[in-house]
């Protein structure tokens, strides 16, 4: 089938009434959770994942994708109106977005971020349509050494870019890998570290862990360290950016989209990096860089577009290689596997309806966001005003019943709560939870490919260094491991990781 035929197939799937409905529900719920303070895309996905379990796979994944970009958009809304980023990718939006709001231009800021996201999302999806199948075909020739090298690079990049020191990030990654070894070994069928628990036989589930570390731990943190927020209360009028705004924003949006897409393909917290690098680039290119930070529209348009197309880019390694590039993609992978689908080189060929259906639905979902959020901003503002004391019990409730509904297994509630406590403690001690979660997902892939590679090479580790792709990937990984040790490069890294959310 040629590409147009495949796109038509995609639209025929995405436009089915049931898929349209759940895409819509996903977008609305995602925005709602994204607007809530302290809850970003990871929390949104893990909280709402259980809703999709009993749906057909395509519908479930379409809804999840909707939740994801909805929550990204919700995060921008809070950045602009309250100066509180819902997630790290929209920290940059605060810089100029909130200033615009203070100048009475909240409407234009919200409007341009919606349009920018839409345009970037569209370009990103187009890019994804072309790149994912290409990479998927290339990956068909990947063997165990290449997959090991890929997971290795993914992990080192995440530790390189996570907040806190590198040592702490590496510790979290190793702990995640250790947690990933719990359960039944897929190669031999033997059990490891299960201590007779039936729940642990299947391994540590990504959903209880994500909900614990990003849901429960986050709420506990907000209870222990309350922040007072003041919602911007002036009336928001004129949501449509004017002609001058468009002129100022057009190229930042295009540049941000392209930049974001390619950053998105790389492993790591790509949407955050995309937003930061777009802001830096726009400031550098701009004729009047001094205006950045005082409420200039380019400072909102570029990063907002970049973080959106990065989302599309991040799907590429997941769907074509089966390797999640960041924790949100890890959650998507978990969701696909719950629906019995294994992402990887064969995924696109085996499930064309699913792949193209999801792609086109992302396009439709972006259009819905645009249509929906401009009129609904008033409602999101009202959501922002709900006091936290009312919100947090409901968030806890959702965590608990969500995890339970996975397998109707109360033990998983305990797993989630314990990880919530651990996540809270680790956070207070300066450890970032992201490397842990990604390592937990990558661990099993890493281990089986390592063992298979060693069997292939009769125990010779040299196999990783004679195959061109694996040697390049491992070499890059080693560079990322070593560079933080060199003082001058260390400072560069610190500039990149200004993603501190506190």
């Amino acid at each position: 089938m040629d590409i147009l035929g495949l796109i038509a197939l995609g639209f025929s799937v995405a436009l089915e009434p049931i898929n349209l409905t759940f895409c819509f529900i996903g977008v609305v719920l995602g925005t709602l959770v994204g607007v809530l303070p302290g809850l970003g895309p990871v929390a949104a996905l893990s909280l709402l994942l259980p809703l999709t379990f009993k749906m057909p796979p395509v519908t479930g994944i379409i809804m999840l994708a909707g939740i994801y970009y909805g929550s990204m958009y919700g995060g921008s809304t809070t950045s602009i109106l309250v100066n509180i980023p819902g997630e790290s990718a929209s920290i940059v939006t605060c810089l100029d977005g909130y200033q615009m709001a203070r100048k009475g231009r909240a409407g234009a800021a919200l409007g341009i971020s919606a349009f920018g996201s839409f345009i970037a999302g569209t370009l990103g999806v187009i890019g994804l349509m072309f790149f994912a199948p290409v990479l998927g075909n290339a990956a068909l020739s990947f063997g165990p050494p290449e997959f090991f090298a890929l997971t290795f690079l993914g992990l080192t990049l995440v530790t390189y870019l996570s907040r806190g020191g590198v040592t702490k990030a590496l510790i979290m990654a190793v702990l995640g890998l250790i947690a990933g070894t719990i359960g039944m070994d897929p190669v031999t069928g033997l059990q490891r570290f299960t201590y007779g628990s039936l729940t642990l036989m299947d391994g540590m589930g990504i959903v209880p862990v994500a909900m614990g570390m990003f849901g429960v731990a986050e709420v506990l943190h907000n209870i222990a360290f309350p922040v007072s927020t003041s919602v911007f209360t002036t009336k928001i009028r004129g949501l449509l950016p004017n002609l001058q705004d468009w002129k100022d924003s057009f190229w930042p949006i295009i540049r941000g989209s392209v930049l974001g897409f390619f950053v998105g393909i790389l492993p790591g917290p790509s949407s955050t990096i995309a937003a930061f690098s777009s802001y830096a680039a726009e400031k550098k290119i701009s004729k009047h860089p001094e205006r950045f930070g005082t409420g200039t529209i380019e400072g909102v348009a570029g990063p907002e577009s970049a973080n959106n197309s990065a989302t599309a880019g991040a799907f590429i390694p997941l769907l074509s290689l089966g390797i999640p590039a960041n924790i949100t993609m890890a959650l998507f992978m978990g969701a696909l596997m719950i629906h019995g689908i294994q992402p990887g080189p064969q995924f696109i060929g085996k499930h064309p309806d699913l792949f193209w259906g999801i792609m086109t639905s992302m396009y439709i979902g972006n259009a819905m966001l645009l249509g929906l959020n401009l009129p609904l901003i008033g409602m999101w503002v009202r959501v922002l005003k709900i006091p936290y004391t009312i919100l947090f019990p409901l968030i806890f409730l959702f965590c608990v019943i969500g995890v339970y509904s996975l397998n109707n297994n109360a033990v998983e509630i305990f797993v989630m709560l314990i990880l919530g406590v651990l996540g809270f403690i680790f956070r207070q001690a300066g450890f970032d939870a992201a490397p842990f979660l990604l390592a937990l997902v990558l661990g099993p892939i890493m281990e089986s490919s390592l063992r298979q590679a060693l069997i292939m090479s009769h125990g010779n580790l040299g196999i990783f260094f004679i195959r061109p792709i694996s040697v390049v990937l491992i070499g890059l990984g080693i560079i990322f491991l070593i560079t933080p040790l060199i003082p001058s490069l260390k400072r560069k890294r610190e500039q990149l990781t200004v993603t501190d959310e506190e």
Partner: protein
Amino acid sequence: MRKTDVITSLVLLGFAVIVAEESLRLPFGTMRLPGIAFLPFLLSVVLAILSLALLVQALRRHGGSETKGLQVGLWKKAGLCLIALFVFAFIFEWLGYVISTVLLLVVLFRAVEPVRWWLVLVIAVSSSLITYLVFSLLGTPFPAGLMGI
């Protein structure tokens, strides 16, 4: 952070020893055919090295500028919520979904700030019933428990 880092690194070191010891009970295999203990053991060694590195880093930092230790904030409130959640996890299959979630929500609403009682009850009962209905429709039955609701 210095004292916190020293403590965490020691705890992690201890954990690494436990993992190493536990994984050596499993078949180790050979380089040619690695067994299931291979990776966990390797990881425990890496973890031990990293915890030592953290310990050394913390000790080499001078305590002079030390201002920020481990912040616990309003940990009593957070702890109260946690206890409520753990108790919930123990009893809810026995007590039934609706009753136990209403109780959980009431405790949580009152734990952090005294939200007005009528509001607490309205939100607790309605959200319990709504989630029950939504998840039943989605095909996830919740335990009815001893009262049958």
